[in-house]
């Protein structure tokens, strides 16, 4: 599997698409990442945001990387501790380029991970957050002109709460792209004020929406005020998805949205677990959603009401069908759906994935073990 993109190196070309990074995005989830906003993940990027095609392609990687290095003040002080925490365990590559001196030694070590194109570091971050990336940074950064002007206002640029790593990427990658963008845009890139103040703006709403990981919100750089949706609406939709921001370890009342991905499918969906009361209901709903694929699912095979799988049944399922439904629980482990009583399931389920049963076989024993422990 090729290392995931996030084009730390690709930024020089402003991400619009060097063919070499075509579909680099095959990551462990078996999903094809699509980035409509610009980073050169897949070929689909070719068609997206093309306004800065020519200049950027001609720029060399190296040059961009040089630009990127050691921009003083590029990181706001608050970021650094976060950065270090995140990166401390992940630095195992030497930097490819010499670093310019920076004020803080810690800061430079985190820069190291980024600048060296430590993709692993980044992919670890990504896997950790189960989120695809904050990808707007790339070629579209000239948008930040508009975004930045708001940075002083309460509704500031959508960089509010990022995991530091991706935040760094945002900031660092923004520079060269903006510099290139300015060729076309004809305006000086203002000092990008990507300060992470919590905002009331749309970004905050996202942290509500991204409910996969309770520890850190989605890495998403975003243009202020785009798409043009009233803040009331984004706030409202976010609150209904905000379920997994837990209070006292229990999900709040109201909707419980989790993302559902499927191996090989080009899209993700979201389901509200509260609208179902049994595994069978969930399974049939998912079946409809991903209608071309069959789900070998617990519940649909078992006797009604019998939610707990026996070992043999599990094996039957796995051998009998192409796909199985798995979920990621609070601990970040991937389990087969159907192990636990429904109520417990919806409390611990963070995300659903429809996997090929061949990929899931490894899960079964663990699932059984876990449920044995539980029992």
């Amino acid at each position, binding site marked *: 599997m090729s290392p995931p993109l996030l084009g730390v190196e690709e930024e020089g070309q402003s991400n619009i698409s060097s063919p070499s990074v075509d579909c680099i995005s095959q990551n462990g989830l078996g999903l094809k990442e*699509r*980035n*409509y*906003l610009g980073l050169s993940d897949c070929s689909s990027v070719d*068609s*997206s*945001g*093309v306004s800065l095609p020519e200049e950027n392609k001609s720029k060399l990687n190296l040059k961009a990387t040089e630009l990127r290095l050691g921009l003083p003040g590029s990181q706001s002080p608050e970021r650094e501790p976060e950065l270090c925490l995140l990166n401390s365990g992940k630095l195992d590559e030497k930097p490819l380029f010499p670093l310019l001196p920076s004020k803080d030694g810690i800061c430079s070590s985190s820069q190291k991970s980024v600048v060296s194109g430590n993709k692993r570091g980044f992919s670890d971050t990504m896997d950790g957050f189960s*989120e*695809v990336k904050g*990808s707007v940074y790339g070629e*579209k950064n*000239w*948008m930040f*002109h*508009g975004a*930045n*002007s*708001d940075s002083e*206002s*309460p*509704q500031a640029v959508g960089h509010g709460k990022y995991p530091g790593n991706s935040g760094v990427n945002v900031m660092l990658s923004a520079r060269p792209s903006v510099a290139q963008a300015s060729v076309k*845009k*004809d305006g*000086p890139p*203002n*000092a990008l004020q990507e300060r992470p103040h919590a905002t009331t*703006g*749309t970004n905050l*709403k*996202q942290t509500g*929406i991204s409910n996969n990981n309770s520890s850190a919100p989605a890495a*998403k750089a975003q243009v*202020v*005020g*785009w*798409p*043009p*949706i*009233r*803040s*009331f*609406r*984004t706030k*409202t*939709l976010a609150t*209904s998805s905000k379920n997994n921001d837990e209070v006292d370890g229990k999900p709040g009342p*109201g*909707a419980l949205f989790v*993302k559902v991905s499927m191996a090989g499918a*080009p*899209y*993700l*969906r*979201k389901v*509200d677990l*509260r*609208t179902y009361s049994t595994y069978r209901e969930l399974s049939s709903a998912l079946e*409809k*959603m991903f209608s071309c694929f069959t789900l070998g699912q617990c519940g649909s095979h078992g006797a009604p009401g019998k939610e707990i799988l026996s070992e043999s049944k599990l094996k039957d399922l796995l051998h009998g069908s192409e796909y199985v439904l798995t979920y990621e629980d609070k601990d970040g482990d991937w389990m087969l759906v159907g192990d636990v009583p429904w109520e417990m399931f919806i409390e611990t389920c963070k995300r659903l994935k429809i996997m090929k049963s061949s990929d899931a076989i490894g899960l079964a024993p663990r699932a059984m073990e876990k449920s044995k422990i539980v029992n």
Partner: protein
Amino acid sequence: MESSKLKREKDSQISDELNELRMESSELKKARDSPISDESYRRSSFPDEVLERVISLLNSHRDRSSVSLVCKDWYNMERWSRTHVFIGNCYSVSPEIVAQRFPKIRSVTLKGKPRFSDFNLVPQNWGADVHAWLVVFAAKYPFLEELRLKRMTISDASLEFLASSFPNFKALSLLSCDGFSTNGLAAIATHCKNLTELDIHENDIDDKGGGWLSCFPESFTSLEVLNFANVTSDINFDALERLTGRCKSMRVLKVNRSISLEQLQRLLANAPHLTELGTGSFSQELTPHQYEDLESVFNNCKNIHTLSGLWEVKGLYLPALYPVSTHLTFLNLSYAVLQSDELAKLLVHCPQLRRLWVLDTVDDKGLEAVGSNCPLLEELRVFPADPFDEEIVHGVTEAGFVAVSYGCPRLHYVLYFCRQMTNAAVTTVVQNCPNFTHFRLCIMTPGQPDYLTNEPMDEAFGAVVKTCRKLRRLSVSGYLTDLTFEHIGRYAKNLETLSVAFAGSSDWGMQCVLAGCPKLRKLEIRDCPFGNAALLSGLEKYESMRSLWMSACNVTMNGCRLLAREMPRLNVEVMKEEGSDDDGRADKVYVYRSIAGRRRDAPSSVLTL
């Protein structure tokens, strides 16, 4: 909706009559000026009382504006008979000027901030505070009955002031406003004895709890319209139930999410004459008996033509709505996360639908169902459920748009958020539906071309303006070159509002629009490569427009200064960022015509040049 259509017809009848009057009047003038005229001829042709009567029947403020321009007599008759004033930009005129011209106003509509403030592009303290207006109104219009605000700032103190200054106050409508809390609402509930309408819609409210609803006194029975869907905290249900019970004329009730299905059923049992209903949460666990109760109460509500709310909808319960859906004309599902089959099942029962708002979770398949089941559809809005989540790649595409256009030839208003679009699809859509008056297409990735051909979307919007001659409002998106704007300038002769983002190649684009669209009133532009040359090409134009917004473009402070200098009757405001130099780019520019001069309440971050 029907009543406004009737109104428009009536207004146009009256306009016709007026035109005749106007012609007669000018003939009369000629007669008067000619040496042969005599007094008796003039008077017998046209008594003033008739003219007054006719003018007083005019509702449209545009017609009234035209009337007032004919001659001094007409101007005076119009101003004395006007009871409703519409002010599209609160800074274009001062409350004193309004009060002086129109002594008999009972209803005011005021709009404040530029529309992009809805998307957080305008700083919090920008202005548009209504208080100064209220103070003047309290003095000059003590019998004020209605106040409708959009994008204004109104504080709790102002709400209290409003509640206590106008004994006849009847209707308050706040849309997309900010600056107030539920305490302000409590003041309104407590003091406005004659309130018929309280419409709180999509505002930025400081929600301090639901106690405000309990402030309506037990003796209060006049409420006809209550919309508190926006005020999310729990209210006292008993208080609400009693309120709806005693307000026998209630016809519009839109509750918030805290109201459960069971509670809704109880409310409806007391209010079978409702015409517009906004439900609360639609997902409670119901026993079969409860479900039957719900169904039967909907069965009794034969007058409901508008339905909204449906928060957290459980598809299982939608059939309870079938008795009501047969005569629905407006269905707002924009907060209801529905899948395509759930929507399809529901729409089979909604043949009369004229307006439909949905989330893009219904997918193209859901939109196909729209096309198949709703032949009378006139307005479609598709909102994105997860606009900021790039992982979620579902939603609607060009296929859904085309499907709707085949089934709904009467479609004239569309707002469509999507992640991909093609020129061919848009061309097909407007061929099927040539009557678009409002075409707002938002391809959510900025600057994205036709995803099949990789071409700019110029052809699409060219087709829109060439085919839809009645087009009044257009929002463009996707990768667009100046060609789009050439098309717009050349063909969009009725265009009044244009929104542009991440588009265009050079100043020429904006110049085409400014030179070409004779009826242009509002132009809002963000993140486009238009600079001073473009800005200044519209010098003469801006006085005939309500406003111009340009942000993140290439306009500089000097360009703005030049504009301000050349056009003294325009207010040229620049929103500065801290630390920016005075000669650099003007990041946010807001230009509007005004007879009130520069505003005195601008914060320090806003510079009027």
